[in-house]
């Protein structure tokens, strides 16, 4: 069960090998989370993440392999995750892939894959997660969105639009869950220095996965619907959202 501060005892992470997910699990276990289920694609990465969670003090860590390209199995993966711990206090959706849009926009298969992994699979999984949380009468979902989805820009519009879809879906799901005891927190990180963005040039207001993880825990404690990391992204994107389209298009973003 979640405690008075909203912090969980049991956590299911879908996309458990991502740097943000790993930092978040370390943070949660440090705060008292005991039962962790990590689901991910790469078995080696999963094993490493599991070791890390145990080292941080988790009492039990289970791993669960899945492929986010396989939309038909999304519900099964979620079911396995729930049955591994019984009651799940916190579900983290950290599934995602960053594409190189310049090269990918002419490849329909790669466009479809980006949308599948970033939006279709998480949406299907969230639908099943919501079913379980309604049954439980309690629980929280943290969905990793991105500032890229807040106002989509030319330079990464495939990734950005897939995150925009997920962001809208997750926020609406939160409204749908009103009165069920369950809720959704959407996380919008800026540029995160992680293995996903390896090799990319330094960006303004860059954050570390650890900083994002701390912001998420604070957001959980506050019961926030949306968490921005760094928090300066919120006013920045408020202003960017007001820009007229012709001006937005000319910005070097």
């Amino acid at each position, binding site marked *: *069960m979640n*405690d*008075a*501060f909203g912090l969980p005892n049991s956590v299911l992470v879908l996309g458990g090998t991502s740097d943000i997910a790993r930092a978040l699990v370390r943070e949660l276990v440090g*705060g008292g989370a005991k039962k962790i289920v990590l689901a991910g694609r790469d078995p080696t990465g999963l094993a490493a993440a599991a070791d890390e969670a145990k080292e941080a003090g988790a009492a039990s860590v289970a791993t669960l392999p899945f492929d986010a390209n396989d939309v038909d199995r999304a519900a099964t993966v979620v079911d396995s995750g729930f049955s591994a711990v019984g009651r799940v206090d916190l579900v983290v959706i950290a599934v995602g892939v960053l594409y190189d849009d310049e090269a990918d926009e002419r490849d329909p298969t790669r466009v479809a894959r980006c949308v599948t992994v970033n939006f279709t699979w998480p949406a299907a999984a969230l639908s099943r997660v919501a079913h379980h949380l309604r049954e*439980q009468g*309690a629980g929280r979902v943290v969905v990793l969105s991105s500032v890229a989805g807040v106002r989509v820009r030319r330079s990464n519009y495939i990734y950005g639009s897939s995150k925009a879809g997920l962001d809208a879906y997750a926020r609406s799901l939160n409204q749908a869950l009103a*009165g069920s*005891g369950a809720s959704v927190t959407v996380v919008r990180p800026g540029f995160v220095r992680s293995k996903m963005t390896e090799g990319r040039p330094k960006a303004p207001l860059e954050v570390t996965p650890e900083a994002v993880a701390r912001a998420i825990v*604070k957001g959980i404690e506050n019961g926030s619907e949306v968490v921005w990391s760094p928090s300066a992204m919120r006013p920045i994107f408020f202003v960017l959202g007001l820009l007229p389209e012709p001006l937005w298009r000319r910005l070097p973003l």
Partner: protein
Amino acid sequence: MPRTARAEAGTDTKTAISKNAPPPPASEERTLSGWGRTAPSAARVVTPDDGNGVLASALLAAGPGDGSRKPGVIARGLGRSYGDAAQSAGGVVVDTRNLGRIGQIDPESGDVEVDAGVSLDALLRVGLQSGWFIPVSPGTRQVTVGGAIATDIHGKNHHADGSFCGHVTSVTLDTPTGVHEVGPDADPELFWATAGGMGLTGIITQARVSMRKVETSWMRVDTERHTGIDSLMDGLVRVDGVNRYSVAWVDCAATGSRLGRGILDAGDHATAAELPAKRAADPLAPPRRRGLRVPNLVPPRIMNALTVRAFNEAWFRKGISRAGQIRHLGGFFHPLDAVANWNLLYGRRGFVQYQFVVGDEHRAVIPQAIEMLQQAGAPCTLAVLKRFGPGDPGPLSFPIPGWTLALDLPVGPAGLRPALRRLDDIVAGAGGRVYLAKDARLEPEMFAVMYPRLGAFQAVRRRVDPEGVLQSDLGRRVGICEHAP
């Protein structure tokens, strides 16, 4: 949207309800939280009018489900437990408010048969008409008899009279293995497990309570102002020897040499002869009904370091040492009842109460706790200090001899949660424990250390509830409900 289970069962073609089976009771889906308004969860709520078959009826309300998970059932009274004791996420909550019959008070023994949903307010109003008062009174009258037993409440007279269940002679308990009539002499093991068992041994439907004879509804009270914690604690030890009731309010905002300064109240029921002339006409006058309510719109964060300091300073100055005042028992026992829904003052994120007890030899933990919270930047709005006498045999009953401190703490300061975790270590290390009726954040490992007789409690549970039907969010969180999903 509230839906009735009856309508649901009617439309579900997979439900095989035989024609002879009783229909499921009306129920509604509700989000519930404790008095501290933290960690809400949703459950199906049934409000029976009769204590007979209450558990079976609650299970019917749960519906057939998909068989993957048993719905946890728990009783709820007036919702004054601060944390998640009277809620069961995804399960069924039995609201006992309509179980409200009060029997005749035996004029010789003062024993009275009452339904579980009777509030202490209702019971003492009826009792005072013939000169009987409740044997143990907490800081509010707005708790039910069922809740008082399930949390084995204590009052300002614990050092003299023990806790509530010491004055209960029998309990009717509806369990998954049938209805049990238990008492200190009838299945004492189940009776004492129920005393402080947080509702996890069954649904209490009735109880027999021994009332206390009083001549008046007034108290003779001595007040002392103490400028530091040592003097305050010594004062409590001194007055406990000669007074049935005692309690101290502590100013948690004061620091340095004034750390733990406070106001000590001690007294006993006033005799008719002690009443001044203007009171003597109606010596058993009942408490006034509450008039004040907190408005719906409370500005955020009004409970902050500044307001807390100002309030505590004012309260300290208001307490002037004087002996032999005559005060009404309502104001003496139940100051919190002056404002009906004062918990709303803590805003959206609510508050936690941390109440712990440590033995006499560990009295240093009291100032240490106050100092730790100050250093963590967590303001404490209200702190109450009291001494406990011997505990009763209940394996999960809270009181043990020594010092108990209750701290009201607004949720918000980042340092609060880690500070309370450190405080758990100190309290457990001193052989002490925290009170489950107030708890909303204790972790299972720590709970097992603080309540070493958990195993004995669970053995009783396995006997009366082998499938673990009785569950609450608290029971799952601290690990009382083993194997609970």
